[in-house]
């Protein structure tokens, strides 16, 4: 937490509309770098779900990010040129902002390529979900990442501004997800999906974690630990109630667009990622040989019911 405060000093306020935040609003916290092309759809998606304010940390974007969000009254922006790695991959920045603005609110911490799905999302809003969790005295919402991809190579998945990324990348792996408890810690550690199958086929145990606790009713002493995979205190990572199941969600993750190659090359140059950028080294190796992520067993995404049917999402006791 002290680190969060220290790294919070890196952030300089660019546009501050936080006085527009009303008690009980759902807030979104986003760290990004050069993702402006994804933003219009991202903002529209989460506004529809009921997010009332977006707080961005812009880590040195040079693609006209401010032109995109500068005018919105529901967006506030902090800018920094500091090292992404030194701030523990953005976690300290997020913790600083969450502590300052997120207290008492339901806070959604996502990347611009992540889209949250939850049970009944076609007929109920995020506001209703959080009201339900409040009523059940649950302070967090567990979700797993589903990596989405297109039918061709990654370079062929060309994304246009304002487009629904599902139109480009509608496929995902229906199975091949592994749940374990992390050694030393007691939280869930879910790995698998296309990353394991394609990029980590020879050492699948190195595949990155897929579980994320992105929606938390924040209190001042809460903190994210390792990206949004682990949040402290540990009880927030528990997916379910003590006795019965709680609703859980899926995060559709649209990493594998044509933008991705550019991103990986840039990130490899910056060397700002976890574990010596091992993840990105594997990605680059996979991309060089023009791997097609699509597979005969891939499934085209339909809706949340499909995720429940595949055992990737729970409805819990939310009738």
């Amino acid at each position, binding site marked *: 937490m002290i680190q969060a405060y220290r790294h919070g000093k890196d952030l300089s306020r660019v546009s501050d509309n936080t006085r527009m935040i009303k008690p009980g609003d759902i807030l979104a916290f986003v760290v990004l770098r050069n993702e402006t092309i994804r933003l219009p759809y991202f903002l529209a998606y989460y506004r529809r779900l009921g997010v009332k304010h977006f707080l961005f940390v812009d880590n040195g974007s040079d693609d006209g990010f401010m032109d995109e969000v500068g005018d919105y009254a529901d967006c506030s922006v902090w800018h920094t040129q500091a090292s992404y790695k030194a701030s523990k991959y953005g976690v300290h920045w997020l913790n600083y902002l969450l502590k300052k603005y997120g207290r008492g609110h339901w806070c959604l911490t996502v990347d611009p390529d992540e889209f949250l799905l939850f049970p*009944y999302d*076609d*007929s*109920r*809003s995020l*506001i*209703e979900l959080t*009201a*339900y969790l409040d*009523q059940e005295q649950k302070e967090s919402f*567990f979700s*797993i990442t589903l990596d989405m991809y297109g039918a061709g190579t990654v370079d062929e998945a060309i994304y246009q501004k304002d487009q629904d990324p599902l139109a480009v990348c509608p496929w995902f*792996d229906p*199975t*091949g*997800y*592994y*749940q*374990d*408890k992390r050694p030393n810690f007691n939280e*869930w550690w*879910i790995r698998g999906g296309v990353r*394991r*199958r394609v990029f980590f*086929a*020879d*050492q*699948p*145990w190195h595949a990155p974690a897929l*579980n994320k606790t992105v929606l938390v009713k924040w209190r001042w002493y809460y903190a994210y630990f390792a990206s949004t995979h682990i949040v402290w205190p540990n009880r927030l990572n*528990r*997916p*379910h109630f003590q006795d*019965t*199941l709680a609703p*859980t969600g899926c995060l559709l993750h649209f990493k594998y667009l044509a933008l991705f190659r550019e991103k990986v090359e840039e990130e490899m140059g910056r060397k700002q990622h976890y574990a010596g950028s091992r993840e990105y080294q594997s990605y680059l190796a996979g991309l060089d040989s023009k791997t097609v992520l699509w*597979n*005969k*067993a891939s499934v085209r995404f339909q809706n949340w019911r499909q995720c*429940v*049917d*595949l*055992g*990737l*999402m*729970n*409805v*819990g*006791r939310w*009738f």
Partner: protein
Amino acid sequence: MKLAFIILAHNDPDNVLRLIKRLRTQDDHIVVHWDKNSRLDLQTLAQSALTDEQRANVHFCRRVAVDWGRWSMVEASLSALRHLQYLDQPFDYAVLMSGGDYLLKPVAGLKQFLSRHPGKEFIECVDPDLDPWVVQGLVKERFLHHHWFSWRDQRPLFEWSLATQKKLGLKRTMPRGLKAYFGSQWWALTWPTIAKILPLSQQGSIRRFFQSTWVPDEMFFQTLVAAVTSADSIYGTNLTFYQFDHTGKPLLFYNDHFDFLHQQNFFFARKLSPKAHLLRDKLDKFIAENPAASVSHLAKNMADYQQFIAVQWRGLPNRRVIGRQADPWYGDLEWNKTPYFVIMAYSQTQLQPLINALNALPGIRCFGDLFIGDHIDYGSNDWAHPLYPSDKPALRDMKRPNFLVDLIKAHPGHLVGYVMHLPIGNDMERIALYDPQASIVFILPEGHYLPEDQQSLNWTCAFQNMIMHDHIHAARQANKPFLAINASGHVIAPESVAKIKEKLLALRDSMMTTLS
């Protein structure tokens, strides 16, 4: 017929105004009690939101600051009733509702229903001696002891005072010989009954008693109605459909609940999510299309809800539950409810002919030695699971039970199985022995003596293959049915193959019948 609707509301003014608009008819009156704790003033909002015509016969009574579970809840209703009394109109019924309620049937249908049950009181009156009624928490303690503190804001004091009174054996009796009754807060009462209750509510002893009762709103009217009317005039059900969940909170209804609410034979539903505008639209549409819809009797239809609870609370059958796993070693097999078979053979057995023979059978898929070696042996060359290429054994080995479940799921309608040459050296051996879905066929070396009843072993030969013996013993101890076959010269004789075929076909047929 002339009705008076009382709406108790504390938030969400838009939906309260919407409810007022829908309830309003020419000759009925609506009294709204708007919680004094709310900073907004509904009356002012209504001035602008409702037209003059819509505001006719809509009244706002004296506001009380309502504290959940305490006397102020009753006082709010009484405030509205006194306002109605002051209006001095010939009401037939007064209907108590909440701002989160909505109409399931038109008011015309309600009037028709009420005129078919003249003089009936639509209120739940449950005798706590016969039925606790309360889902969770205090029942008789609610009125047997004094409750001066708020459970919400002063919980330690609340609990301390209750515990102290219990320890000291302090109990109180009902005033004026009343008998306590419980029931849902919402009701529809005839006006003569209300005219009898209102003076009672002014009496000091009754007032004082309920002022220190916990959740008096679920007791006050119920007790007094039972006291002032005859038992046969109490209908025993209220007009509002509600359902408590297992913790005693009312279920909230969302946009997708129209069909569920439509099945309910009630006039109102409690309670709708403030955001469920689409649900309200659908209910409006139904009422507009069926302006005379009514019900013959009040009844819940909870089949959907019961099924939901039975299924969803513990996870769907045959599906993985994310974030809950009894044993990581067992993996997805924990959720698997599809039977499969394992052929356990000693190391030199030649199994390929058997595999081929089994794969030739309809509805059976027998794989090779799946779990050993740096190559996944699918048993035949024509199929490999797309997510697990033969040359990527690491994907299989990360969690073998999950791989097996994926193979089973990839062959719906088939009985899936695999062969295993012992010793295999990983956990799949034990899993096959203890997984209730696994049926085992043991292939024993020549010279093993196994009589037809398979109850006793030839111990001399058993020592020749210690592992086999251990496994058979384990299977027997686990009460697992199995088939044991003797190989001759490391080859399985045709009659033994026929025996295995027969057993697996029977297993497949029983699997298909349970699935269908």
